[in-house]
């Protein structure tokens, strides 16, 4: 037998079966502990904020003898990144940093994240594993509609898809006309986008003469914003593709922290690189697997910017049962809400996911909606604008008034305060080309 030498510069094929997704549990825990100890030592030595906090608590890297000892370490929170803007949490000299990304801060300064050469290799690896978990493989044609630029989504998915052996089309976000043309003409088999942007494409498809059943598009890889099971069903029914949820955040690495698999039930975390804990967001105490709380992540291999016990603000739980797909890395429930998204109206905590549940209960599918908060004469008012769909349209005013009333009652039932409902014409609520803006807070606080 003659083995053919790979041509120079050829990509090493990615082998899913030998990916760490399937490591035996004991081996995984050993690997995690080794990596955790090295990361804590590195951060302690090189990041002054972390070292000072450890010293205040009287803990040193030598105290980390098991994964459970992690709880002795201080948390890192988003404001730590802002307070040390731009480079205060770096653990590598500037010369070793080959890439910077930044989040668009809605308030004040953005946060800056850094990557060494090795960090970029890890990022590509976990994104490759993400796409493989979503059923992509070498030979797929991937339209990447995540934004390229300072946002981590575009480049993260790009390198992962290339590493997988797929053909990548870097359309970035926006420009619906061009997205449609590419999807139709380039034989696209997989799309990376925010779910709200794909819904926007679905709505506009008719105008562009797109018949989904005729396209080779097979898989949608959706992330960067919370979405619901109802949205998944709507996407899958309208387009005939399989829609997968992926998870990531810039502070940890970008996209590639976790992904759904063929089971579409929960997201596997690539915990050989990112160690998860669930904590009670009030007390900070770790909670056992299966209980809902705030997800806290510790990077195990990142060099430029190790994150120790980073509080994601994402509310979820770890699924204790093994997954039918055979991956041993644990799953989290899909993230329906962030403690950040929560707003308070007349002293009551409200999550957009509760509003979605109330609308869904009445209409059967989730309509486009937007929440507006205003303050009149010192009193908070919440109004939900709901787009009318053909499915709920009546030919009588009484029928529509009835719908309005049922929506208002459902919202009052779920949330506990009376909330105004305004019915609006289809496609009139803003569809941002990126993340859907669900809540507009016009209160001057």
């Amino acid at each position, binding site marked *: 037998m003659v083995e053919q030498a790979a041509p120079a510069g050829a990509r090493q094929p990615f082998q899913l079966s030998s990916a760490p997704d399937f490591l035996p549990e004991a081996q995984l825990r050993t690997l995690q502990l080794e990596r955790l100890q090295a990361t804590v030592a590195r951060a302690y030595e090189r990041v002054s904020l972390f070292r000072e906090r450890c010293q205040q608590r009287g803990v040193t890297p030598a105290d980390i003898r098991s994964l459970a000892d992690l709880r002795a370490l201080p948390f890192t929170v988003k404001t730590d990144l802002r307070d040390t803007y731009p480079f205060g949490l770096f653990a590598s000299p500037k010369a070793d940093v080959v890439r910077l990304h930044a989040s668009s801060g809605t308030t004040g300064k953005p946060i800056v994240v850094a990557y060494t050469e090795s960090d970029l290799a890890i990022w590509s690896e976990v994104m490759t594993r993400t796409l493989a978990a979503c059923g992509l493989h070498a030979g797929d044609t991937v339209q990447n509609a995540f934004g390229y630029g300072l946002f981590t989504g575009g480049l993260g998915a790009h390198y992962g898809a290339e590493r997988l052996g797929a053909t990548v089309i870097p359309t970035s976000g926006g420009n619906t006309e061009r997205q449609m043309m590419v999807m139709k003409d380039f034989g696209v088999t997989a799309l990376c986008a925010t779910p709200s942007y794909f819904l926007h494409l679905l709505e506009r498809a*008719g*105008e562009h003469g797109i018949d989904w059943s005729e396209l080779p598009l097979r898989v949608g890889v959706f992330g960067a914003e919370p979405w619901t099971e109802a949205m998944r069903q709507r996407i899958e029914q309208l387009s005939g593709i399989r829609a997968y949820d992926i998870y990531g955040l810039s502070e940890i690495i970008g996209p590639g922290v976790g992904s759904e698999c063929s089971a579409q039930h929960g997201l596997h975390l690539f915990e050989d690189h990112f160690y998860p804990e669930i904590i009670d967001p009030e007390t900070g105490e770790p909670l056992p697997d299966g209980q809902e709380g705030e997800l806290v992540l510790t990077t195990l291999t990142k060099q430029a910017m190790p994150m120790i016990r980073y509080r994601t603000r994402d509310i979820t739980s770890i699924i204790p049962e093994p997954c039918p797909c055979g991956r041993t890395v644990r799953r989290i429930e899909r993230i329906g809400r962030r403690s950040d998204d929560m707003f308070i109206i007349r002293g009551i905590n409200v999550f957009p996911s509760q509003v979605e549940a109330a609308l869904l209960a009445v209409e059967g599918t989730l309509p486009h909606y937007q929440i507006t908060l205003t303050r009149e004469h010192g009193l908070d008012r919440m109004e939900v604008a709901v787009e*009318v*769909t*053909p499915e709920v*349209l*009546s*030919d*009588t*005013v009484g029928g*529509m*008034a009835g719908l309005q009333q049922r929506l208002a009652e459902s919202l009052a039932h779920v949330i506990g305060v009376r909330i105004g409902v*305004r*019915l*609006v*014409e*289809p*496609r*009139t609520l803003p569809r941002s080309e990126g993340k859907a803006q669900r809540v507009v807070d016009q209160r001057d606080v």
Partner: protein
Amino acid sequence: MRLKQLSLFLENQPAHLRHPCRILADAGINIRTLSLADAEQFGILRLIVADWQRAQAVLEEAGCAVRVDEVVALEVDDERGGLAEVLAVLEGGGHNVEYIYAFTAGRSGRAVLIMRFRDTDAAIATLRVGGVRVLEAAELLGGG
């Protein structure tokens, strides 16, 4: 004898009514008759057009939520008591009129009423038995 009626949801604000009318005009579709039911925040525009399928398609493509219902068109004498007589027939059959609108243009001495019922077939049967002239779609709108 059954007629297709398109219903559109509109917000009760300036220019919102013009939008669908403009779309139909641009598509060369003539509105034969209409009614607008209004509430404080919104209205329901009901339309009768000859080519309802094409009208539905262009309106939906323009982003409107469109609903299609079956209504009944009937012809009465355009004189005192014309409507009362028809309503008496319907009352006799136990039919409630959900809503009604009328037009007289182009039909000398006769008026056309568009009526919506819960049970369209039963209402048509009652009207027939009562001697009311129920119009075929082609009679009203022309063409096939």
